[in-house]
C-alpha cells in the first residue's frame, strides 16, 4: 500500500473506529477523532518531505483497475497542484476538530461526518481518474448535508437542501461534459485524467467550448463563480463554525482545483472563453466585496469575502499564463488559510457572545487581546497586506493579469480597496470604541483554541514573509502545465 492510499484511508478508518465506540463516551470520541485527523496531517507532512519539487509530473502514483470493461481505475497521485491542497485539507480538518469542542449533542455522528468529509476531500485531490474524482466529489455532499442540517443554525434545513441542490445541479453538467469527452476515448480507454486530456485534444473546437462551459457550471457552483453563488451565503452562515472552516477553506478549493485541471485539458476552448472568464471573475470580485461590506452578520461578511477572493482565483486561471497559474495555486492556499482562520475566530467569538452582529461588539481588545491579535492579522491577510500570504497571492494575480489585459487590472485594485474597507471597518468596530457592558467579561482564547488559531496565523505570516518554499512546491508542475497550454494555443 502506497503512502497516498494510507493517507486516503486514515480518516475512513477513523470514522469506522468511531462508529464502534459507544456514543456516550464523548471524551474518547473526541480524542480518537483528533488523533486520526492529526495522523492524516502528519502523513501529508511526510508526503511533502518525500515529494521531489523538481519533478513536475505525477508522483507516488498508484493504479488499480476497478472495472476492466470500462477501464475505470483506482488511480492516485500528487503533483505540485494537488499537494498543497492535500496538506491544507488535512491541516484544516485537524483545526476544525480542535474548534469542535463546543458541539455537545450527537457528538459521535458529528465526528464521523467530519472524518468522512475529510475522506471525500482528500480523495478529490488525490484521484487521477475522472470517475474516481466524480465519486469523491459527490461523496463530500453527504456528510456536509448532514453536518449543516443537524448541527446548523436556525435556517439549517433550507441551507442544507439549497446547498445540495445547487451542487448536484452543477455536478450534472460536469458529468455530461465528462461523458462528452469520453466519446473520443478509444474503446476500453478508461477515464484516467492523463488519457482524457489527450482525448480532449482530438475534439472539434466548438465541442470543446461546450464541454468547457459544462465544466464551468459544474466547478463554478462549488467555487463559486458570480451568478452561481446563491447557496454560499446561506450555507456558510447556517453551518456550525468548524464546518464553515472546511467549507470555505477546502470545499471551495475543490472547485478551483477542478477548474485548473480542466483548463489544462481544454486550453483552446479556454482561450475562446477567456473574455467570459475574466468578466465573471471581475464581477465576482467586486460584487462579493461590496456585499461583504454591506453585511452586519460577520459570518455572512466572511462568506461574501470568499466570493470576492474566489473571483481572484478565477482571474488567475483566466490569464492562462505562468504567473497567473502560480498565483491561482498561491491564492488557493492563502484563501484556505485566511478564510479558515477567519471562520475559526468568528466561530469562537460567537460561542462566547452568541451574536454575530458586528454592531453588538465594541472594544474587545481590552478583554481579548490574543483574539484581537489573531483576528487583526487574519483580516490584514484578507485585504492583502504585505507580510501576509494574501499579499503574495494578490501580487501574482495583478502581475499575471497585467500581462494579459493591462489596465483592466484597475478593477482588481478597486476590489482590493473594497476588501480593505470592510476589513478595516471590522477591526475598528470589534476592537475599538466605548466599552459595552455586555462585552465586559468575555473569556480570551483557551489553550487548544490558541493552538488552532496560532498554527493558521503562523502559516499566514510565515508564508507571507518567506513564500519561496510554497512557490517552489508548485513551480515544476505549473511550468509543465504552462508548456501544455502554450503548445496548444500559441
Amino acid at each position, binding site marked *: 500500500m502506497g503512502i497516498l492510499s494510507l493517507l486516503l484511508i486514515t480518516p475512513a478508518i477513523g470514522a469506522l473506529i468511531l462508529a464502534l465506540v459507544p456514543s456516550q463516551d464523548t471524551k474518547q470520541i473526541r480524542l480518537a477523532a483528533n488523533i486520526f485527523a492529526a495522523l492524516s496531517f502528519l502523513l501529508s507532512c511526510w508526503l511533502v518531505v518525500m515529494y521531489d519539487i523538481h519533478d513536475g509530473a505525477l508522483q507516488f502514483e498508484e493504479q488499480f483497475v476497478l472495472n476492466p470493461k470500462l477501464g475505470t481505475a483506482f488511480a492516485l497521485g500528487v503533483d505540485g497542484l494537488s499537494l498543497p491542497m492535500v496538506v491544507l485539507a488535512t491541516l484544516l480538518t485537524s483545526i476544525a476538530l480542535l474548534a469542535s469542542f463546543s458541539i455537545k449533542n450527537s457528538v459521535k455522528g458529528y465526528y464521523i461526518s467530519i472524518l468522512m468529509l475529510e475522506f471525500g476531500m482528500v480523495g478529490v485531490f488525490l484521484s487521477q481518474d475522472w470517475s474516481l474524482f466524480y465519486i469523491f466529489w459527490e461523496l463530500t455532499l453527504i456528510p456536509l448535508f448532514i453536518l449543516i442540517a443537524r448541527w446548523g443554525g436556525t435556517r439549517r434545513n*433550507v441551507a442544507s*437542501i*439549497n446547498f445540495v*441542490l*445547487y451542487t448536484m445541479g452543477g455536478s450534472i453538467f460536469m458529468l455530461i461534459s465528462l461523458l462528452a469527452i469520453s466519446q473520443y476515448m478509444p474503446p476500453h480507454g478508461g477515464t484516467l485524467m492523463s488519457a482524457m486530456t489527450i482525448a480532449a485534444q482530438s475534439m472539434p473546437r466548438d465541442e470543446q467550448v461546450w464541454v468547457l462551459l459544462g465544466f464551468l457550471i459544474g466547478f463554478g457552483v462549488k467555487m463559486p463563480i458570480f*451568478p452561481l*453563488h*446563491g*447557496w454560499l*451565503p*446561506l450555507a456558510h452562515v447556517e453551518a456550525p463554525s468548524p464546518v464553515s472552516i472546511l467549507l470555505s477553506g477546502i470545499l471551495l478549493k475543490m472547485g478551483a482545483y477542478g477548474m485548473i485541471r480542466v483548463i489544462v485539458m481544454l486550453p483552446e476552448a479556454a482561450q475562446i472563453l477567456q473574455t467570459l472568464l475574466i468578466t465573471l471573475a471581475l464581477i465576482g470580485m467586486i*460584487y462579493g466585496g*461590496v*456585499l461583504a*461590506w*454591506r453585511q*452586519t452578520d460577520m459570518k455572512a461578511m466572511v462568506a461574501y469575502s470568499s466570493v470576492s477572493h474566489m473571483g481572484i482565483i478565477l482571474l488567475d486561471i483566466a490569464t492562462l499564463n505562468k504567473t497567473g497559474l502560480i498565483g491561482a495555486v498561491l491564492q488557493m492556499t492563502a484563501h484556505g488559510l485566511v478564510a479558515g482562520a477567519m471562520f475559526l475566530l468568528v466561530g469562537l467569538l460567537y460561542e462566547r457572545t452568541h451574536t454575530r452582529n458586528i*454592531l453588538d461588539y465594541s472594544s474587545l481588545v481590552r478583554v481579548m487581546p490574543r483574539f484581537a491579535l489573531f483576528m487583526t492579522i487574519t483580516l490584514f491577510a484578507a485585504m492583502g497586506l504585505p507580510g501576509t500570504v494574501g499579499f503574495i497571492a494578490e501580487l501574482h494575480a495583478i502581475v499575471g493579469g497585467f500581462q494579459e489585459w493591462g489596465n483592466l487590472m484597475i478593477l482588481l485594485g478597486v476590489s482590493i480597496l473594497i476588501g480593505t474597507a470592510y476589513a478595516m471597518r471590522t477591526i475598528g468596530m470589534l476592537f475599538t470604541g466605548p466599552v459595552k457592558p455586555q462585552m465586559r467579561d468575555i473569556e480570551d482564547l483557551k489553550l487548544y483554541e490558541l493552538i488552532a488559531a496560532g498554527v493558521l496565523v503562523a502559516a499566514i505570516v510565515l508564508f507571507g514573509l518567506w513564500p519561496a518554499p510554497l512557490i517552489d512546491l508548485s513551480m515544476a508542475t505549473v511550468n509543465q502545465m504552462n508548456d501544455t497550454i502554450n503548445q496548444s494555443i500559441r
Partner: protein
Amino acid sequence: MDFLVAFIPLLPFIAAAIIGFGNLFNYIDGVQSERITAVIAKSAITLSCLLAIALLAADLMALNSGIFIVGQWLSSGNLSIELNFISTGFSVIVAALFSIILAVITHFSMNYIHSEAGFHRFYFVLSLFSSGMLLLILSGNAAGTFIGWEIAGLCSYLLISFAYDRPVAAINATRVFVTNRIGDAGFILGIALSFYFSGTIDWVRLNEISETLATPTVTVISLAFVIAAIAKSAQLPFTPWLARAMEGPTPSSAVFYGAVMIHSGVFLVILLHPMIEKAPLAMALLVVVGLFTAIYSFIVGLTQTDVKSSVCFAISGQLGLMFLECGLGLWELATWHLCAHAIVRCYQVLTAPSFLFYVHRNPMKLVTPYIANKRWLYIASLQRFWLDPIADRTLVRPINGLGHDLDRFDKNIIDRAMGAPVSTNYTISSLTQLEKNLDKKAQHEIQVEFVRGSGMVGKLFEWIANIMSWFEDRLVLRGIGMDMVGIGSKLGQAAITFEQFILKPRYLVLFVFIVLMIAASI
C-alpha cells in the same frame, strides 16, 4: 267501468293537497282542526277504497277492458308516454286490498296520533302516500309506477323522520332513503333499457314484446327491475334499512313496512312475471336472494328482544319466501302469499304496542337446544351479520372521504383560482406581531445607518452596494435559492398528497369505474 280507476289515486291526492295547503296557509292548524283533517283524509281514502272495490267487482263481472287511457302525458321523439291505468287482473285485486288496508290505518291513526305535534303533517303524508301507492299499483306504464314508487319512498322518508328533532330519526331516515335510491337507480335503468330494446314502457306491451326479445336482453332488463324490487322489499343485502325504518310512528310502520309499501317489490316482480320467466338468471337471483333473506331474517329474528324489531325481521323473512316462490315460478302462490301477508301483518304491526299486554302470562317458546348451543350464530344474529358496518366500511366511508377530498379540492384550488375571499391572514392580529414588525423596521434602520457612505465616492459606493444587495437578495438568494427549495418542497408535498390519495381504495374503485365506463362507451 274503466274510468273508475283514474279516481282511485286521485282522491287521496286531492285530500293531501287540501290538507297540505290548508296547513300551509293556517286554515288547518292545531288540535281543533284535527277533526277536519281526519275527515278529509278518511273520506278520500274511503271513497277510493269503495271505487277500488267497485272496480274489482266490475272486473270480476268482466266489464273492464283492461286498460284505461286518460291522455298523452309526454311525447318527445320516439318516446311517448300516456297517462294510463290497468283496470283488470292482479293489479286491481291488490289495489282493492291495499286501499282497504289504507282506509283502516287512516281510521286507526286518528286516535293514535291524536294531539301530537305533527298531526296534520302525518295525515298529509299518509294521504300523499296512499295516492302514490295506488298510482304505483294501477299505473299502466313504468313511468307512472315509478312516480308512485318515488312518492312512496319520499313519504317513507318523511314519516321515519316524523320526530325530526331527534337526531337518530333523521339519520335513520336519510339512511333508508339513500339505500332505497340504489333500487331506484335499478328502476330507472330498467325503464331506459326497456324503452331502448322494446320501444315501449307500458307494462302490458312490455310483457308481450319480451316474448320476442333475445334472452340476454330480457335478462338485463329483468335484472334491473329485480334489483329495484329487492331494494324496495328489503331483501339481502338491503335488509338493514327495514329495522332502521321502524323509527317512525306505529301506524306508519304498519302502512309502509307491514302491509303496503314493502310489498311493492314483490308486486313489481309479479307484474313483470311474463318477462322475468324468460330470464333464468333473474329467476336464479330471486331464488338465491329470497332464500338467504328468509334464513337471515329467521336467525336474526330469534334474538330480537323488542316487538317491532322481531316483527320487522318476520316481514323480511316472509318477503324472502315470496321472492323464493317467484323465483321458482310459483306466481299464484306468491300472489296469495302477498295478499294474506299484507292483511296479517297489518294487524300485527298495528297491535304491536299492546302486544305485551296480550301475551302476558304466555311465555315465549324457547329455541331448540341445537340452535341455542351455537354461540357464533348468536353473536352473528345479535350483530345482524354485521351488514350495516360492512356497508359503512365499503360504501359510506369511501364516499364520505371522496366528498371530503372534493371539498378540499374546491376550497384549496377552485376557490383560490376563482379569487374567492380568503381569511385575513395577512393583517396584524396580535401585539407580538406588531412588535415583531416594529423590531424588523428598527433593524432595517440600523442596517441603513450601517451601510451609509460619506462624500461623493462614498455615496456612489453606497448606491452601488444597495443595488447589488437588492440583486443578491431578490434574484440570487430568494429568486433562485429559496424558490428552488420552496417549489421543490411544494412539489414534493403535492406528490405525497397525490400518492396518499392514490393509495386510498376509494380512488382505486373510482379508477376502475372510470375505466369500465370508458370501455363501455367504446
